């Protein structure tokens, strides 16, 4: 089987999984769970196969499938892997089995529908990452909404209806703007060059005047910024995370948020480079605000899921900082930070899910001294906390260090030339490491240390399934922290291309 | 004003009375009667034009309208009767189930 076919199989395996689930008789919950797990594991194996066969030095798309779809509009079915999405696809496939396995004991009603929704979301997320045609991209982007809506709305917590509607309306609002922008973009491309195409490669060549670029960047950017999320468009995240079931939170934090940053990296910034360069100060400002504001808010939360939700806002601020730095080290750092956050946030949410299943409360004050009651759990929790803080040897350090270094290196020339604002922003971002330690350690303090207290004592420590899930994440975190060179070689060509696309002027009147 | 114009004026007047009646009157049966009035006003106008143009189409249409009006009344009256049997009043203002 050719590699391109394997990629298509990876993409459509969840759909086949849904078909298989439909056939399973109702009430056969164990069969459904096992089936789902095996489908996801198969998907992971296939993705890993593609990952190792990925050619680091190749500049274009790999494992490409290009089929004409709507020739009159220039829409093709084009998917492929390149440095932009290879790590994210790997992350998605890696988290798939973990999500399914993590939900085994948590979901007891409408099990079939639940796993079908998980498959559908997986399909949508993978599609968004591998799509190389704007029409296809938008299609997959929108597909993700409904299953997520159902996931939060049916299996969520108390305020799930409010949370899920907020999530959908917020995201949909951005999507509408993006749709208008997409249509306008393709129309402009057609009227200026005569080429009607939705393909990314063609769109990168579009020469739009700067004011048009700015408007389009805002339209696209709004949609992506809501997803990332960037302050001040972030308020859907804490509610969505808190009310979603564990699997939903893991999918949301692990992969969904990366769709926003991926959108910026692949589409938002390279399509409108002149406007991007004009708005760098604003982007930097918002990134730093996200870092600091997110961390400050995480400091005063009493709901353990909210702490992790706000920490996500803070961590993804680093990613935006790295992307805005336009420095190769910063960009690479941003990519690694995306993956690292996916792993740590997923791990933390899984752990919260595990304790919630035992104690049925998310109040931080209800817990204490878990290090004594649940030693194995606490060990994993400590490792994930340290990864979140960015301790060296964990993936969090790789991401944060490279981003901050890149941000500095990228903004130093501006400082020398007289514009000190970007450098000041980068310096402010460094305070994020202190704030990060503050809120995570406060969390660990109340949670793990002090007098032992938990509802529904005595508690059972982690079972084998839970240990395996967490061990997988921890191993990945350390692998990325100690040996990041291997993944980073895969993304270097893409990072360079991104830097090239955004740094060079697209239209003559905009000098860089 | 010659005869044609007079007839058309009468037709228009009848139509107007019927229309206003449907809008203003609250009694269901009166509304039905006003709708019949509108139909017959149209009939009058058709006959006038048919006679003037010596066209047979107008006359045929009149007969069509007779038939349709009759069948419409045949169905409308029972429906209204059923409605009144439920609502126990002839006042159209009482039937607001389509509100909101």
């Amino acid at each position: 089987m050719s590699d391109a076919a394997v990629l298509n199989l990876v993409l459509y395996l969840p759909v086949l999984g849904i078909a298989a689930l439909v056939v399973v008789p109702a009430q056969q919950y164990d069969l459904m769970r096992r089936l789902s797990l095996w489908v996801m594991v198969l998907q992971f194996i296939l993705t890993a196969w593609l990952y190792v066969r990925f050619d680091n030095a190749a500049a274009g798309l790999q494992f490409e499938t290009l089929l004409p779809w709507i020739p009159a509009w220039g829409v093709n079915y084009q998917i492929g892997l390149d440095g932009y999405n290879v790590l994210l696809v790997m992350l998605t496939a890696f988290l798939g089995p973990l999500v399914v396995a993590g939900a085994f004991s948590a979901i007891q009603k409408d099990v079939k529908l639940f796993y079908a929704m998980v498959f559908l979301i997986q399909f949508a997320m993978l599609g968004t990452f591998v799509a190389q045609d704007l029409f296809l991209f938008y299609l997959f982007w929108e597909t993700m909404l409904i299953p997520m809506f159902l996931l939060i709305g049916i299996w969520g917590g108390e305020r799930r209806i409010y949370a899920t509607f907020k999530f959908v309306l917020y995201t949909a609002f951005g999507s509408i703007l993006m749709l208008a922008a997409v249509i306008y973009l393709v129309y402009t491309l057609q009227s200026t060059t005569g080429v009607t195409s939705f393909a990314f490669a063609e769109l990168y060549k579009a020469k739009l005047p700067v004011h048009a670029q700015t408007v389009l960047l805002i339209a696209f950017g709004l949609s992506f910024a809501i997803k990332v999320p960037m302050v001040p468009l972030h308020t859907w995240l804490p509610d969505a995370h808190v009310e979603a079931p564990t699997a939903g939170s893991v999918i949301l934090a692990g992969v969904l948020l990366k769709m926003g940053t991926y959108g910026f990296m692949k589409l938002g910034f390279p399509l409108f480079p002149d406007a991007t360069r004009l708005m760098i100060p604003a982007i930097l400002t918002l990134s730093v605000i996200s870092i600091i504001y997110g961390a400050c808010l995480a400091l005063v939360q009493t709901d353990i899921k909210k702490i992790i939700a706000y920490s996500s806002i803070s961590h993804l601020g680093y990613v935006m900082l790295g992307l805005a730095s336009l420095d190769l080290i910063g960009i690479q750092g941003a990519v690694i930070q995306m993956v690292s956050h996916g792993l740590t946030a997923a791990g933390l949410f899984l752990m919260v899910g595990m304790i919630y299943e035992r104690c049925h409360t998310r109040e931080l004050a209800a817990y204490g001294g878990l290090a004594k009651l649940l030693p194995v759990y606490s060990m994993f929790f400590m490792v994930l906390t340290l990864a979140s803080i960015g301790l060296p040897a964990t993936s969090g350090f790789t991401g944060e260090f490279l981003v901050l270094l890149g941000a500095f290196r990228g903004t130093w020339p501006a400082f020398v030339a007289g514009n000190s604002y970007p450098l000041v922003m980068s310096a402010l971002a460094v305070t994020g490491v202190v704030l990060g330690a503050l809120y995570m350690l406060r969390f660990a303090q109340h949670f793990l240390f002090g007098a032992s207290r938990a509802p529904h004592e005595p508690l059972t420590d982690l079972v084998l399934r839970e240990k395996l899930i967490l061990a997988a994440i921890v191993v990945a975190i350390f692998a990325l922290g100690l040996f990041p060179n291997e993944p980073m070689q895969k993304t270097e060509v893409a990072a360079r291309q991104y830097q090239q696309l955004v740094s060079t002027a697209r239209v003559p009147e905009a000098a860089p | 004003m010659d005869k044609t114009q007079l007839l058309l004026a009468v037709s228009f007047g009848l139509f107007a009375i019927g229309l206003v009646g449907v809008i203003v009157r609250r009694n269901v049966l009166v509304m039905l009667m006003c709708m019949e009035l509108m139909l017959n006003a149209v009939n009058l106008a058709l006959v006038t034009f048919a006679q003037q143009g010596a066209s047979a189409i107008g006359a045929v249409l009149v007969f069509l309208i007779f038939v349709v009006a009759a069948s419409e009344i045949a169905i409308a009256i029972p429906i209204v009767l059923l409605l009144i049997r439920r609502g126990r009043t002839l006042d159209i203002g009482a039937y607001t189930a389509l509100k909101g």
Partner: protein
Amino acid sequence: MGLLTLIVVLPLIGFLVNGLLGTRLAAAPLGKGVVTTVACGLPILSFLVAIKCFLDLLAGSGAPIVETAYVWTQVGQSHFDIAFYFDRLTAVMVLIVTGVGSLIHIYSTGYMKEDAGYGRYFAYLNLFLFFMLMLVLGRSLLVLFVGWEGVGLASYLLIGFWFEDPEKAAAGKKAFITNRIGDAGFLLGMFLLYFTFGTLDMDTINAAFLAGPAPAVSASLVGVLLFIGASGKSAQIPLHVWLPDAMAGPTPVSALIHAATMVTAGVYLVARMHGIYVHAPEASALIAGIGAATAFFAATIAVAQTDIKKVLAYSTLSQLGFMFVALGVGAYGVAVFHLYTHAFFKACLFLGAGSVIHALGGKQDIMHMGGLARRIPVTFVTFAIATAAIAGFPYMSGFFSKDEILWFAFASERGGSQFLYAVMAGTALLTSFYMFRLLWLTFLGTSRMDHETEHHVHESPLSMTAVLAVLAVLSAVGGFLPLPHFLEPVLPLAKAREELHAMEAPLMWAAVAVFAVGLAGAWLFFRANGALADRVAPPFAGLNRLLFNKYYIDELYDRVLGRPLVWISEHAFLGFGDRMVIDGSLNGLARLAQRSAGVLARVQTGNLQMYLLFVLIGSLACLAWGLRYV
């Protein structure tokens, strides 16, 4: 695997073994022996390998040994390696870390024998050793930083070792956060260095600075930033607040981490990067100033403390201040010399305190001790020797190192002054005074212990006393090694001003005098259970309270930094920003949509005649429009 990598990796193996299996092994009778062998054996092995490397270094032409383990990452032209570097300075540090470290490991086998967390303790201790070795052996600032953060982690875990007590756990958190604040400055300095030189290798950067003055980046700025990092780790003002709280951890931890090794990492960093400071007089002046301030203020606080470990903690702060003063006036080798002697006598003092605490079954209040000299003689003798060393008894190790510092504080061409000397000499006087106060109140006089404790008093096991003896001997004779001269190829010594050379001998006598006065003062005030001190105390009650409460700095930080941050986060950001403004506008929009929908829905009255009227009006409007435009 190269030898340097081996030195670093051996304790890591110990951490993995004891971390995963330690708790289970320690429960089994023979298993405890396995834990001990692994935990103590591997550091000793590291020490032996370090000696081998040291001999290799001396045998070779003096060129440093460099080993690259692997490439961490490569981005375009920049690549970051994990590499290790061994020169004379590293040799001294590694030997101290592994040597004193191994001794303290052995001591811990006795001290922590009864503790349920025996396996976990040694796992953490080995983890600490791994990171500390990485710190001192690292070639680039990146590897150093990995070790730097790692020892912070180990410190956090070990300070909060008895985590069921929330105060102890909080002390660990405080240490980590304060260190992190320093780390922020460190990172900024690192970044500046990186894109000026394109590398983080310390030897390259140092050589570049020494070769020519002030390249593109301001040496003073980098110097200050790196010093912020150093002051976080080495507990200088204003980031000193975590060290006294760190005494919550087990005493061997205090000895190893907060006396001999981790807190000296800052000194090591500045000494290693001395090339920067040679060209940064403002930064050096800052270092000397803060070092002197810390030394003096810590000494004043130590005079009023009543917990045996707290006295030693403030003493450590003070001695670290001495080291930074030496760094600030350009006497880098002398600072390392003091680091070396301090490791011996401070470790001995802390371990001796541990022995006392062990003998008294957990009590740490010196006001309720006394008369222990005869009951626990070995502890007393070793403690006394170490006290004499720190106070500056002639020819003991502390005397040599402190005397050199005082001399350079006075006479160095790069910042020596009479004022600086006066402050440091005053601190030395206070040091002698409070250390002998500690000795008297703890060991001499008559017993002020309660009956139960007194019954319990017994000498510590051999694992503890043997280590005490070794360290006491080293405290006594360690100073005869001419370390500053040994380090001169790596750390050039500052020059003393020519005209002041005549003062060298008188200053030495002054140092002896300071020691003697301190000793005499302590004897006078604190013999007979502090009779004279108690009599003289009442008029000074306010001062005493101020000193006892460490000048209320912790409370100040809480008021000025801690609480406002939480308040702003809670009320300004969360309450106002998030809830009122952002969510409020969103929910407001939703309510607006709902209300307008409600208003528009009024058209649907359900009244048939209304609908007909609308139809009529609509059709008339269409007709009119059609007539006009079509």
